[in-house]
């Protein structure tokens, strides 16, 4: 256990020291991937630990990003109307935009709004015992609703162009390399804290209830627990993590548009977790970083091959590596251990739950 902890510390320290060994361009990429890793943590909690497959996390990521972007847009507009509203013929700032000129409100909203939406949706669907693939498909329908709305209400949201062209955050210029490094480090710290909290949760009593819900929801119910409230809680938590990631994303990348909350990005988020290992938090982080690195490598070198590779990755992981890369390493280590202590009883294999 201690060895494991040491490994985690080393990993996060290595990430934190990124600016020492990564070029400016690679650092910016890594910062973006680490934002995705925060989303992956949330998906790992609900999918790997609780058995809820959400195909709609792009929405929560997008909502968080938009909340922060609204503040950034207002700050760079400097008291005037944001540029896209002028083109769209809006004469005064809409009322719901106004509180976002306050950075504390905007940052708070980027956590609370995704969490509230998830709580509402989760409460209704989980209470009605909609689960499994039905929940997944409904979450996909939610994506359709939000993307269509955000595109159609261009006078409020910037339409397909989204929100972009920010200059400062709390008065600090976003383009200076030092700010980029600071934001990167902030992302690593946030990821580290989220990871620590998530692993504490999964090791707690509540975390064991979550796994129990995954393996047999009705038994949990018969034991006197209320699965709905546990599920709503963990679903909102993962939405809040996605919103948090959205905030960090928009600060570093300087752009959010409805295309980033669509159906395809939402499914890709699940892929990160599946590749890394759905039952492992560290696997989710590694998955997000590895898949996205592969994506940027392939699209730089062989743009045509990328979608075939992505497709194959999905199939291979699902068919042959249901526990992802972490599961692969684990089983390889188990085998080695087994061959060392001949005659020793084998470990119980991981239960594969989908």
């Amino acid at each position, binding site marked *: 256990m201690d*060895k*494991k902890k*040491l*490994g*985690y510390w*080393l*990993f996060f320290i*290595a990430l934190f020291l990124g600016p020492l*060994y*990564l*070029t*400016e*361009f*690679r650092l*910016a*990429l890594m910062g*973006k991937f680490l934002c995705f890793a925060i989303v992956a943590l949330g998906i790992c909690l609900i999918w790997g630990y609780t058995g809820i497959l959400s195909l709609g996390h792009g929405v929560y990521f997008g909502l968080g990003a938009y909340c922060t972007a609204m503040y950034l847009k207002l700050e760079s507009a400097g008291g005037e109307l944001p540029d*896209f509203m*002028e*083109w*769209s*013929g809006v004469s005064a700032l809409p009322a719901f935009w106004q509180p976002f000129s306050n950075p504390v409100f905007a940052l708070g909203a980027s956590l609370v709004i995704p969490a509230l939406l998830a709580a509402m949706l989760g409460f209704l669907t989980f209470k009605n015992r909609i689960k499994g693939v039905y929940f997944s498909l409904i979450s996909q329908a939610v994506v359709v609703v939000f993307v*269509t709305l955000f*595109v*159609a209400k*261009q006078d409020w949201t910037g*339409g*397909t*162009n*989204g929100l*972009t*062209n*920010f200059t400062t955050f709390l008065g600090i210029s976003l*383009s200076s390399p030092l700010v980029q490094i600071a934001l990167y480090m902030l992302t690593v710290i946030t990821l580290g804290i989220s990871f620590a909290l998530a692993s504490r949760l999964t090791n707690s009593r509540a975390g064991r209830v979550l796994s129990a819900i995954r393996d047999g929801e009705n038994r949990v119910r018969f034991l006197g627990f209320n699965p709905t409230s546990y599920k709503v809680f963990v679903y909102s938590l993962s939405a809040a993590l996605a919103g948090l990631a959205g905030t960090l994303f928009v600060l570093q*990348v*300087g*752009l959010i*548009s409805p*295309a*980033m909350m669509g159906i395809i990005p939402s499914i890709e988020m699940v892929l990160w977790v599946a590749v890394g290992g759905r039952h492992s938090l*560290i696997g989710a982080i*590694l998955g997000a*970083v*590895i898949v996205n*690195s592969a994506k*940027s490598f392939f*699209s*730089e070198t062989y*743009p*045509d091959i*990328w*979608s075939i590779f992505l497709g194959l990755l999905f199939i291979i992981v699902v068919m042959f590596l249901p526990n992802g*890369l*972490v599961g692969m*390493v*684990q089983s390889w*280590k188990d085998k080695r251990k087994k061959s060392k202590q001949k005659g020793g009883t084998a470990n119980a294999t991981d239960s594969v739950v989908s």
Partner: protein
Amino acid sequence: MIAAISAAALTLSGCAASNALNEEEETTAADTSDTVSVGVLHSLSGTMAISEVSLRDAELMAIEEINADGGVLGKQIEPIVEDGASDWPTFAEKAKKLLQKDEVATVFGGWTSASRKAMLPVFEQNNGLLWYPVQYEGMESSPNIFYTGATTNQQIVPSVTWLLENKGKSFFLIGSDYVFPRTANKEIKAQLEAEGGTLVGEEYTPLGHTDYSTLISKIKEEKPEVIYNTLNGDSNVAFFKQLKDAGITADDMTVLSVSIAEEEIRGIGTDVLTGHYAAWNYFQTTDTPENEKFVAAYKEAYGDDRVTGDPIEAAYNAVYLWAAAVEKAESFDVDAVKEAAGGIEFKAPGGTVTIDGDNQHTYKTVRVGEIQADGQFKEVWNSGEPVKPDPYLETYPWAEELN
């Protein structure tokens, strides 16, 4: 577990180290050699690849021609092609890479407004230079972008005037639900009011919408003389097929489109398009000696079955305009090139284009064409001389309240 993590950390740092090495090699190589690198940044994958691949082809062709002719300032142009993957953050990211890592002299790229808006802050912050080759909705004039496609007063405004004079006064506006159609239609409405037209309907459909039966029955209800079409991509196919099914032909109502070029006609089918109109600055059939050469060269390079079109020509022009500006400035420096660019002229396939030094757009001839059964346009009107670009429509009194 610990093994996996340290392995990952090692790979990470390993990648980074090798990258750093590569970068150093590249920059030193670029400084001493007699080549100059430029970026070509279009979507080569994803939904926009359909349109943008042809632009990359045209730009590469222009680069090859210039190189064969001795290059720019004696240096051969070396294109660095990047894929924007139809994804706007990727565009921003790749633009940053081209400017910071490859230190290119200029970038040719983009198609959608969203991709341009995503790249704009990158070019402004790094003082780079972007050549954007597609018609767009105007209301923009970044000091770091040259716009070689039409702005609204070089495509939409004159075509509306032409329609009012030749085809009818009552307009129905349809468009895909995004920035270009909504902004364009706002301008059209103001223009109709000023020039004596009437608006009988305005409808938007989501991108990728494929059922137009209800929209068409609204059109039938309002009986407009002209349908002004700013639909995008696949929606055009569904709209035109279903319009014909509903018994509306080019004889009943005139449809004028601004996003249908030769390439799109082939995917829609001439059986439903013949007799309808489009407004552009260039058609493959445009009759200039430059165009004859251009079309022949394009077909020879990329196959006899390929067609040219307005954005393809604008992308081709962009490379020549940049090269001419560099020659005039006698430097690749962005500020010097910008300084020199005003007034640069190029005998383009679609007629002479000139860079307007004030807003960095180009003077272009406006053309309206009728779609023929062979998938080509027959020009029915042109503006005679190149029209001065006016992205904010400042010279039109009716557009005052739009800004």
